[in-house]
């Protein structure tokens, strides 16, 4: 196991508090947990790419970072009026 995979495991463990926030409480808290998990997963996928030395898979975190913007905006808009 190299340093990249160790960092990936440490960052992956951050998803547990995000899941806790996403699954409990008011919708506002859930949206914050969702946005936090999106940013963390983008970093996590990048670390996994570096740890496995399969650099061609950098497209995955790049796509997630781009789509995360749209997902966050859609949920924020729905939370504003409809949820």
């Amino acid at each position, binding site marked *: 196991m190299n340093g990249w995979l160790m960092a990936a495991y440490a960052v992956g463990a951050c998803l547990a508090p995000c899941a806790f926030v996403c699954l409990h409480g008011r919708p506002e808290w859930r949206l914050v947990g969702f946005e936090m998990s999106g940013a963390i997963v983008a970093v996590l996928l990048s*670390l996994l790419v570096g740890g496995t030395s399969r650099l061609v898979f950098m*497209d995955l975190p790049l796509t997630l970072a781009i789509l995360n913007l749209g997902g966050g905006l859609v949920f924020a808009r729905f939370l504003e009026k409809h949820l």
Partner: protein
Amino acid sequence: MIAMVEDALLAAIAVSCWIGCIGMLRMRDPNQALHYLSFPAAVAAVLLPFAFLCLSGWSLATLKATLIALFLLASNAVVTHATARAFRVRAIGHWEPRKGDAVEFVREKRPQ
């Protein structure tokens, strides 16, 4: 030397993600918790291209990591603002400040 820098960058990335998560959990209000989004989206994402630079030099992966950092930096600001705006509209029904809105921060007068 480069390996030590790489490990330090990776440790900083993991620590910044954990600071963001713990800070989010510790806050009382979702508006306060939103501020901690910047730790993974700004600090960790900016450190990531430097770690890839140590790993593979000036490669396509480094360029993509830089793009990821730029996208996360820009989208974090936009999404955080949109979310805070949604919270406000959901709570009081409008976005613009109006007469009669509750003042959130009141500066206390100094005792004479």
